[in-house]
């Protein structure tokens, strides 16, 4: 497969995602929509005294771990299953194009769409951080970039994970329940299970949490606010965190590629 074909196939996969209105509207709502609602609420509660850097931290957590991540997983699940669900997979296989290629193009397509959503959601928090910092210092552009890079990393890892799992199971509901369930309920429980020690480092969001910019550790909240965003930060070597994140992206992708190659179309 040459570069032109790869580019066209990725564009075609992006087209399928972009034009799927239910998925896209839900994803937009979960990313930029939620960010707008969140910062509007915080601003209303704190009357122009929203801490600037805290807004970036909240925005990154919202996009990388919570609602933005749900949108990413939704996009990844759709990318991994749309050909199978529509029945078009068999027509793509019948072109003679390698099944591995059919699988691989789903990943950049999902990542591109998911990144555009999570970063636009994060852009809302950047805007809020500068516009509503009040008496708190405005965040530096460098810090904003650090958080944006972390959001991008979290999005890429979770989009790849979702595409892999979706291609493995062939089911969007199963993928959504499994990945979101793991990232919320299971990760939350494991994070609190201190008796597990370094085993917890193997959990994706905990590894992502270790690379989270700034000093925020564990659950944090705006003073006087009932909102608490947990960024699952546990200290671990950065190399370990990177390897764990890589593992969570690559292993499901390998499994998804294997299933795409072997399943009856």
């Amino acid at each position, binding site marked *: 497969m040459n570069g032109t074909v790869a580019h066209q*196939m990725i564009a075609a996969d992006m087209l399928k995602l972009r034009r799927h209105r239910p998925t896209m509207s839900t994803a937009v709502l979960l990313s930029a929509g939620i960010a707008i609602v969140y910062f509007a609420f915080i601003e209303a509660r704190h009357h122009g005294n929203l801490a600037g850097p805290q807004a970036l931290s909240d925005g990154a957590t919202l996009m990388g771990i919570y609602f933005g991540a749900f949108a990413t997983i939704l996009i990844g699940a759709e990318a991994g299953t749309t050909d199978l669900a529509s029945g078009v997979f068999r*027509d793509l296989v019948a072109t*003679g194009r390698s099944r591995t290629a059919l699988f691989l193009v789903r990943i950049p397509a999902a990542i591109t769409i998911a990144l555009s959503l999570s970063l636009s959601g994060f852009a809302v928090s950047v805007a809020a951080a500068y516009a509503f910092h009040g008496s708190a210092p405005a965040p530096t552009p460098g810090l904003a970039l650090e958080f944006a890079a972390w959001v991008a990393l979290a999005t890429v890892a979770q989009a790849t994970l979702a595409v892999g799992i979706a291609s493995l199971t062939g089911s969007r509901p199963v993928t959504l329940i499994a990945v979101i369930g793991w990232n919320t309920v299971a990760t939350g429980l494991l994070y609190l299970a201190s008796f597990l020690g370094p085993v917890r480092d193997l959990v994706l969001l905990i590894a992502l949490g270790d690379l989270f910019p700034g000093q925020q550790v564990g659950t944090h909240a705006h003073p006087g606010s009932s909102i608490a965003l947990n960024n699952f930060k546990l200290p671990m070597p950065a190399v370990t965190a990177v390897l764990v994140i890589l593992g969570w992206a690559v292993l499901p992708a390998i499994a998804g590629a294997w299933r795409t190659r072997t399943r009856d179309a």
Partner: protein
Amino acid sequence: MTTAPPIIETRGLTKRFGSRTAVSDINLTVPAGCAFGFLGHNGAGKTTLIRMLVSLTQPSAGIVKVNGWSLADHRERALARVGAIVEEPRFHAHLTGRQNLRVVAAARGPRAGRRIEPALQRAGLSDRGDDRVGTYSQGMRQRLGIARCLLADPMLVILDEPMNGLDPGGILELRGLIAGLVAEGRTVFVSSHLLDEIEKTCHAVAVIDKGRLLAQGPISQLIGDTHTRYELSCDQPQAALSLLAGHPAVAQASQAPGGLLVTLADPRAAGTVTTLLIQAGITVTGFTPIRTTLADRFLGLASRVGGNK
């Protein structure tokens, strides 16, 4: 028969699902440049074999060659110029017809992208190409499926039960389309249980039953029609019978409801027989050839009828 290498060739092709054998030891040869019918009852193994031909499922045993390329070793080359509709054509309902073609064209390569407009035009969908496929009728989906096949500039078009769900107008259109593709030198492989349609559309057929290939070859050869059987109606059947019984141009003559059943010794002797009867003062009111149809032959071969229920 054509001397060109076969466009499809299978040897010992077998597919098992657990202990059930869906397709067993099929040696199929499809000549290039013709319309080829693939006949069988529902569940005979037609779709399973087609799925193996386009690599949707792997054979349990045997080999498949498409356009001279082994599917196992050169899948991409073998299928590069194959267009197929397996079972019913499926699409992304939320995309337009044109966008659906773009999705498959992307996998086929840049040249396929340039064939989108001509394919839509040929399928008669140019003016509906920007409508979402969810709004298409079944006939339009079938036509869009054909347009998708044409993106490959196919040497081989595989259509699995293409007449299903089409109204008479749609069937007529499809028949014309198949004839047009064959006239361009392409091969059209059509699976169906609509024997009459296959007889009208195809030059050669293969018959499959319970996963086994029962017969294959040109339709005329398979039917084995010698064009020698006639139904004779006249005003004096007894006299006609006596006259014809011993005549050298007649192999056999017998009484039948409404007249006589005459089998000629030579297909060119029909004129001799009628002249003989007229000269004997017998008024011939009808002398109709009895055709053996593909349906007669198929029903004789396949197991669901013919005592093997």
